[in-house]
């Protein structure tokens, strides 16, 4: 199974069918250079994985793509046109939904309120718009049932959920908005077998629906199972890119650790 | 540092009360040269006032006027001034003599009104107007405030055996709105209440408002202390039955005169009684037109010294 070397190396030159192209992204926090000249692209309608060791800069890249942090340098092209995301709202409006590593759930709000956060449904118009609770609750039920085995009533507060249940809520939220790109930062790290399987199904379902997915994962088996393409980061830099069919878990480990270069 | 030995520094009590504004104004108007007037942050700010006196003391003024918040709070700072040998004029509230002696602080002169006396004047007035045994309630300023307590004590002593004091409440920070609320409640608990004694005019105005709101203007009389301009107006219009005017303006003015007299080498009288006048509807018009000065003749021994 193991192919030695000579694997097709992915160029950082974007192809025409890329949904998102990031070029030369750098980002520092004080003295910490979290990202240095990172260029990646995500093929439209495919699942791209982003892997790398702890502290490699994966979450930082995710936050740049989703508008949380502005990049210090570099540019983004999304769906054919250059974009600058000044805020997460900009990225969401453009069609990028993100499941952050820390989930971005509001503990004291209910499950349905979290699902509709900043996407609340209202009745009326202008200053006389009031929340349409009933409709949100109904839709929330549907959004969750697609995914989870063991989700508590949608009216309970998120604070009461177990780690896995929380993850399920955050993923349902990102998947629920008919967006173009869904970014998931280690979505199955805290999940049990059944939930992990469900999430993997869901990710495949998103692709089947024509969505593009960026998946951060430490689980290389999962990456090999799901992804069409893989970017590898090491210490803040892009280390390599591969089509999944041209690589295997062993090579990925080597690229992540630096045992194999390029 | 510049020579300020020809200048006067005054440290007075309050910050946001017309009583002390008038006092400050009197000090400034009475002075012939530059004066510095500073006040404490609130009437509970004993140490802050002491800090201010210490601060001006290092500047070597020629004379100091002090209106202490309590009998002893300025004593430490006074001992600093004592070392400079500069005259200190105590106005309004007196410094505790024993404490001053222990700290080695000497006071050149005291001029002020006795707050207990002011309360007595008010008490005598109400006792004269109301039938024997009538119910009155007392409203004081911040709990624990020395001036408020002296006024209330004086009032109680004067009406003892003549009127019935049904209730006493204190009002945090001498607040007019809180005085109003408390007065409403007291009237409700005591439908037969005939009068209020209130520890200052500002609160007295709130209490008279409560009386009006309750539709009891004919039944409940309000007497307060201070004689600030709004108070005098209220007496004139009948909202207040009377106020005991203490003439803060004149007290301030006499304070600077004392400084001048001391500078001129005169020996000052130990104690000077500032004028106190009971202002009722009869003389309110006179009081207003003379404001901020007293409308009756009064003794000013300092001025006499200066005119010699």
């Amino acid at each position, binding site marked *: 199974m193991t192919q030695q070397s000579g694997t097709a190396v992915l160029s950082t030159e974007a192809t025409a069918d890329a949904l998102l192209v990031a070029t030369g992204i750098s980002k520092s926090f004080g003295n910490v250079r979290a990202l240095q000249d990172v260029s990646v692209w995500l093929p439209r309608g495919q699942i791209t994985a982003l892997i790398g060791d702890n502290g490699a800069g994966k979450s930082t890249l995710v936050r740049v793509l989703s508008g949380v942090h502005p990049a210090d340098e570099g540019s983004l092209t999304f769906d054919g046109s250059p974009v600058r995301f000044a805020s997460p709202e900009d990225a969401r409006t453009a069609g990028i939904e993100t499941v952050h590593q820390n989930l971005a759930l509001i503990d*004291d709000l209910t499950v349905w309120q979290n699902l509709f956060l900043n996407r609340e449904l209202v009745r009326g118009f202008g200053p006389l*718009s009031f*929340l349409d609770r009933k409709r949100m609750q109904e839709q929330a039920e549907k959004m969750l049932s697609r995914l989870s085995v063991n989700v508590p009533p949608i009216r309970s507060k998120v604070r009461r959920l177990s780690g896995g249940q929380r993850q399920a809520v955050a993923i349902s939220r990102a998947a629920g908005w008919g967006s173009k790109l869904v970014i998931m930062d280690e979505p199955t790290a805290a999940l049990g077998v059944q939930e992990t399987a469900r999430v993997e199904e869901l990710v495949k379902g998103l692709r089947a629906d024509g969505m593009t997915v960026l998946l951060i994962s430490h689980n290389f088996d999962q990456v090999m199972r799901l992804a069409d393409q893989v970017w590898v980061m090491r210490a803040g830099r892009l280390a390599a890119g591969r089509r999944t069919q041209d690589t295997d878990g062993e090579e990925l480990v080597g690229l992540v650790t630096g045992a194999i270069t390029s | 540092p510049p020579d300020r030995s020809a200048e006067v520094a005054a440290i007075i009590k309050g910050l946001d009360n017309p009583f002390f504004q008038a006092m400050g104004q009197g000090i400034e108007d009475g002075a012939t040269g530059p004066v510095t007037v500073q006040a404490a942050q609130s009437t509970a700010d004993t140490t802050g006032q002491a800090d201010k006196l210490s601060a001006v003391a290092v500047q070597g003024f020629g004379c100091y006027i002090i209106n202490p918040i309590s009998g002893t709070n300025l004593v430490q700072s006074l001992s600093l001034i004592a070392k400079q040998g500069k005259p200190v004029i105590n106005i309004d509230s007196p410094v505790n003599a024993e404490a001053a002696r222990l700290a080695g602080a000497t006071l050149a002169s005291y001029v002020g009104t006795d707050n207990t006396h002011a309360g007595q004047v008010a008490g005598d007035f109400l006792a004269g107007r109301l039938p024997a045994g009538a119910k009155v309630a007392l409203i004081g300023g911040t*709990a624990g405030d020395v001036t408020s307590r002296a006024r209330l004590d004086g009032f109680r002593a004067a009406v003892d055996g003549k009127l019935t004091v*049904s209730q006493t409440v204190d009002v945090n920070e001498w607040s007019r709105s809180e005085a109003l609320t408390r007065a409403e409640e007291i009237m*409700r608990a005591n439908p037969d209440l005939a009068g209020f004694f209130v520890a200052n005019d500002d609160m007295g105005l709130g209490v008279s408002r409560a009386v009006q*709101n309750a539709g009891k203007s004919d039944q409940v009389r309000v007497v307060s202390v201070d004689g600030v301009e709004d108070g005098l107006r209220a007496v004139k219009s009948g909202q207040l039955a009377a106020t005991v005017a203490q003439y803060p303006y004149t007290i301030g003015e006499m304070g600077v005169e004392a400084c001048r007299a001391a500078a001129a080498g005169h020996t000052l009288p130990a104690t000077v009684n500032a004028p106190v006048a009971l202002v009722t509807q009869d003389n309110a018009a006179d009081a207003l037109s003379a404001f901020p000065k007293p409308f009756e003749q009064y003794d000013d021994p300092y001025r006499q010294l200066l005119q010699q």
Partner: protein
Amino acid sequence: MAEAVAVGADRESLGGRLRDIGFWADWAAVIGLVALVIVFGLASPSFLTLGNIQAMLVSAAILIVLAVGQTFVIATSGIDLSIASIMTFGAVVLGLLYAAGWPILLACLVGVVAAGLAGVINGTLVAKGRIPDFVVTLGMFSAASGAALILSDGKPTQVVDGFLLALASGSVGPFGYFIVVAAVVVVVAHVALFHTRFGVHVLATGGNAEGARAMGIRTGRVRLAVYLISGVLAGVGAILLVSRVGAAEPAINTTYLLNAIAAVVLGGVSLQGGRGNILGPVVGALLLTALTNGLTLLGISQYYQPLAVGVVVVMAALLMRYQR
């Protein structure tokens, strides 16, 4: 069918609630108020008279308005220590304009605008300047009372005006205008907090600002808005205050500051933010008002009043710790 199930579930959960100490804890302020009303009602015949109840509501009105403003700020996990001095500042502006001959309604409006502006400064420093709420509003506490003193030169201004007089003494049926104003503020605030997107964003900002931001909520604007609300309500409080005492006074009332916070806390709103509740603080304000009222009616020495307030606050909190 689905409907029926949902309703059934709700009913069950209501029943469950009543057996849960958490439910009672959530309502600690109400229980405290009821207990006080029973005790004072038995002890003083005047306490439960219509007149006294009306008067209590009137005298609670300012505190209620301030507590509602404070609630919005606290729900974002902020705190507004400047609320009472902004009220003073608004009152002084109102009074000076009135004394300068402006029409009373315009003077009131500008007073509210001035108070709102002070709120905007708070909000801007908190949101854009990223300074902690406590520090900003501690600064504004000083600055606004200083501004009030400077503008008024330390002197109170008499405001004797028909409109304000009517506001203080008039009533709709048994309810004084003050109560009507407070009720309108409460209803609008409740709707804003629980039935609008803005309200959800306030709670989200207070619960997890970073998460809210990641979801695209402009937490800076939310913070600015709550301080604006708090400032404007302090301005409304200023109108009521001037109307009540017939004068605009530069003295700050720290009692209002501490009581406005105590009312919110008694109302079960966590200072951690993220949880809000408008009716709780209203009940908290009523409780504090009833307490002083009752003690005054009973003629209990004024020295015991602060002690009683302290004990009640702590006792209500002891119940509240079972809050969910």
